[in-house]
C-alpha cells in the first residue's frame, strides 16, 4: 500500500512545489535576507530600482551612480531594471497590480498623482528636501505629505543646423523669433529633391498644449473641470502644428513618427530646425560630431511658452527594505556624483536648489547657446494633469492626425476634442 502511494505523494509534492514557486515569483522583491536595512552586519539587502529615463543612451551613467552608491553602502545592492519609455506606464501599472513592483521606481510628473492617491507610494515626509528646488520638491507632495523626490527636469528647445542656414543665406534663429519667422525660414530651407526638410515638430498632445500656451490660450479652465482650448488660440495651435506636414516637414508616410526618424534626419544634416528635448544634446553630439548646430528658446506665436518636464522617484508602499530604499532615493536624487554625472553627460538636469551648480553644464559645447535651457524656464507651459491622462492624449493625437491628413478641418477637430475630452474631466 505504502509503496504504491509514495510516487503519488512525490508527484503531489512536486506539483505543490511548482505552484509555490509560481507564487514566490509573484512576490516581487528579490530580497531574502530578512534584515530590514542591512543593520544585521554581514547580510546584504537588494533594492530593486525601475526606471525609463536611462534607457536609450544613459544606461552607463546610471551605472556610474549605482557603483558610487554601492561603494559607500557595501551592505546595499541596487538591482536596476530599465524599461523603454513607451512601455513603462503599462509595465509599472501591471507590476503594482500584481504586487511585483520594484522597491524604488521612477514616475513622471503627470502620473505621480494617481500613484500617490492610490496609496502605492510610501509616505516619506520628514526626509530632507533642502537640496532640491523648492517648487520641484513641492510638486511631489499630496495633501501636505511628501510621496516622492524630484529626480530631474528637462525642457524643449529649438535645435537648428547652422550649415543649412548659411547655405540658404538666412539669419540664425533668435530669442525674438515668432512662428512667422520660423515658417518663413522653414519654407526657404525645405528642398524635397535633396531630401532636406525645414522643420520637424511632432503633431502630438505634448506640442498641442504648449502651442496653445504660445498663442496666449489655456488648455484647461481655472477649475480644471473643462477644456478651454476651443478658441482662437487653439485654432492657431492646430493650424501651426498640422500645416507643416508635407510642406516643410516629412509626413507619416515619409517615416515621421517612427523611432529615431527625426534624430537620424537631424544628425545626417537633412533637417534644418527641430523641436526636441535637451536630453538629445549628448546623442546629437555623439552621433554627429562634425555637425554645426546650436539651440535657441522656442519661438512663440503671441507669447513665449516652453514645455518643462520633471521626473520623480518614489518608494513602493509595499517595499520591505524602506530604510535602504530611502538611502538610495536620497543619494540618487541629490548626491554630488549624480549632479556631476547628469551635468557632464548632458542627461536631464538635476533639480538642485542652488542653480550655480549648473554652471558646469552651461560651459559644455555644443551647443554653444546652452543658456537657452535656463532662459526657457522664464515662461513655462506646464502639462495639464488629469486622471484619464492617456485617453485624453489619444483623443487629441487622433484629432490632430485627422487634420494633418486632410480628413478634418481644424475647427471640426477642435470641437471634437472638446466634446470628447470634457467628459473625461468630470
Amino acid at each position, binding site marked *: 500500500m505504502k509503496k504504491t502511494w509514495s510516487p503519488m505523494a512525490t508527484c503531489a509534492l512536486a506539483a505543490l512545489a511548482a*505552484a509555490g514557486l509560481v507564487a514566490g515569483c509573484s512576490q516581487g522583491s528579490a530580497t531574502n535576507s530578512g534584515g530590514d536595512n542591512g543593520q544585521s552586519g554581514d547580510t546584504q539587502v537588494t533594492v530593486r530600482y525601475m526606471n525609463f529615463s536611462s534607457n536609450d543612451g544613459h544606461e552607463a551613467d546610471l551605472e556610474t551612480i549605482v557603483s558610487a552608491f554601492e561603494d559607500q553602502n557595501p551592505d546595499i545592492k541596487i538591482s536596476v531594471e530599465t524599461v523603454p519609455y513607451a512601455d513603462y506606464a503599462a509595465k509599472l501599472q501591471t507590476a503594482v497590480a500584481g504586487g511585483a513592483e520594484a522597491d524604488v521606481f521612477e514616475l513622471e510628473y503627470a502620473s505621480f498623482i494617481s500613484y500617490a492617491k492610490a496609496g502605492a507610494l510610501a509616505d516619506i515626509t520628514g526626509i530632507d528636501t533642502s537640496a532640491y528646488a523648492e517648487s520641484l520638491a513641492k510638486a511631489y507632495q499630496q495633501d501636505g505629505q511628501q510621496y516622492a523626490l524630484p529626480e530631474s527636469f528637462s525642457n524643449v528647445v529649438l535645435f537648428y543646423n547652422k550649415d543649412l542656414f548659411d547655405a540658404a543665406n538666412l539669419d540664425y534663429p533668435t530669442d525674438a523669433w515668432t512662428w512667422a519667422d520660423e515658417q518663413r525660414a522653414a519654407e526657404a530651407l525645405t528642398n524635397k529633391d535633396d531630401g532636406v526638410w525645414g522643420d520637424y515638430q511632432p503633431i502630438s498632445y505634448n506640442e498641442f498644449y504648449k502651442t496653445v500656451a504660445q498663442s496666449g490660450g489655456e488648455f484647461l479652465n481655472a477649475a480644471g473641470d473643462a477644456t478651454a482650448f476651443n478658441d482662437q488660440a487653439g485654432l492657431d495651435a492646430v493650424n501651426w502644428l498640422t500645416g507643416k506636414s508635407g510642406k516643410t516637414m516629412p509626413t507619416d508616410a515619409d517615416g515621421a513618427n517612427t523611432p529615431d526618424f527625426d534624430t537620424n534626419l537631424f544628425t545626417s544634416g537633412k533637417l534644418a530646425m527641430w523641436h526636441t528635448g535637451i536630453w538629445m544634446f549628448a546623442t546629437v553630439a555623439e552621433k554627429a560630431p562634425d555637425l554645426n548646430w546650436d539651440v535657441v528658446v522656442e519661438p512663440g506665436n503671441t507669447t513665449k511658452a516652453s514645455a518643462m518636464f520633471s521626473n520623480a522617484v518614489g518608494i513602493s508602499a509595499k517595499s520591505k527594505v524602506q530604510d535602504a530604499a530611502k538611502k538610495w532615493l536620497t543619494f540618487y536624487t541629490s548626491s554630488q556624483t549624480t549632479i556631476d554625472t547628469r551635468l557632464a553627460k548632458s542627461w536631464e538636469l538635476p533639480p538642485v536648489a542652488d542653480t550655480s551648480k549648473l554652471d558646469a553644464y552651461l560651459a559644455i559645447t555644443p551647443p554653444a547657446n546652452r543658456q537657452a535651457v535656463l532662459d526657457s524656464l522664464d515662461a513655462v507651459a506646464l502639462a495639464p494633469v488629469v486622471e*484619464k491622462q*492617456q485617453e485624453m492624449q489619444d483623443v487629441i493625437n487622433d484629432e490632430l492626425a485627422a487634420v494633418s491628413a486632410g480628413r478634418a478641418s481644424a475647427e471640426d477637430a477642435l470641437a471634437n476634442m472638446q466634446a470628447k475630452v470634457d467628459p473625461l474631466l468630470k
Partner: protein
Amino acid sequence: MTDTARKAGRRRAALKNALWVLVFLAPSAVPLLVFKLAPMFASAWVSLHKWNMISPMEWVGLGNYADLLTSGNTWEVFSHTLLYILGYLPLVYAGGLLIAVALNQKLKARGFLRAAYFVPVVTSWVAVALVWQWLLNPSNGLVNHLLGLVGLPQPGWWTDPTWAIPSVILASAWKDLGFVMVILLAGLQAIPQEIQEAATVDGAGRWRRFWSVTFPLLSPSTFFVVVISLINGFQVFDQVYVMTGGGPSGASQVAVGRIYDLAFRYGEAGTASALSWILFAVILAVTAVQMRGQKKWVNYA
C-alpha cells in the same frame, strides 16, 4: 474472501486507478488550472469591479457590461472586427484552396513549394507586419510603386481610414495562406482515388469532378478551417497593433486592441475584463451556430 472485502478491494482499485489518471493528467492539468482557468475566473471577478490596477477594487456589479453594451465604441470595434473577418476569410480560403489543389498535382519541386507556402505561418507576426507595412507604404512602398507603373490609383493604405483594415486583411491572408493550404491538402489527399475514377468513367469533366466530388468531400476540412479562422479572426490583434496601432483615428481598432487599450493604457481593468467576456460570449455563440449548421452541409462520407 467475504463479499464486503471483495467490494472494498474493488473500490480501492478504482480509487488507485483514478489517482494514477490524475498523476498522468497533472503535467497538463496543473498549468491549465494555474495559467488558464484561474486567470479566467479572476477576470470574471475583476469584470464586476471598477479597478485601475493600483487602487483597491470597487464593486459595480454588471455596470461595466451595461456601459460597454451602450457605448458606440464597442459596436465600432466589433464592426471593424467583423469587417476584417468578412474580408479575410473568403480571401484566405479561396487562396488556400487554389494553392492546395495546385500542389496536389504532380509538379516539379512540389515539396519545396509546399514548404515555401508554409514559411509565413511559422514566422513571427511582428516581422510579417513590419514587412507588409513597408510593402504597403503609401509613398515609397513596392505595392504602390507597381500600381503606379500600370496606371492604377495608389491608395493611402494604413494611413487612410478606409484602407487601414484592407491593409491588415492583405497581410493576414498572406500569412495564413499556408496554414489553410496544409489543412485542405490533407483533406484532398484523403479523398479516395476510386471515387474520382468512377466520376471520370461516368463522363464528368475536370470542372464537374471538382464541384460535384472533390469540393463536397472536402467539407470536413473546410468546416475546420472556417471554425478556426473565425475564432482567430475575432481575436485579431498582433497585426493591427504593429501595422496601424488601431489607427488612423481608431479606424482599424478591433475588439482585442480595445481590450488592450482599456487595460494597459487607460487603467480600466474592470471594463477590459468585461469586454473580454463579451468577446468570449460572441465567439462561443458563433461557434455553436456553426456546430449546429454543419449537419446541413458537412459531408463525412
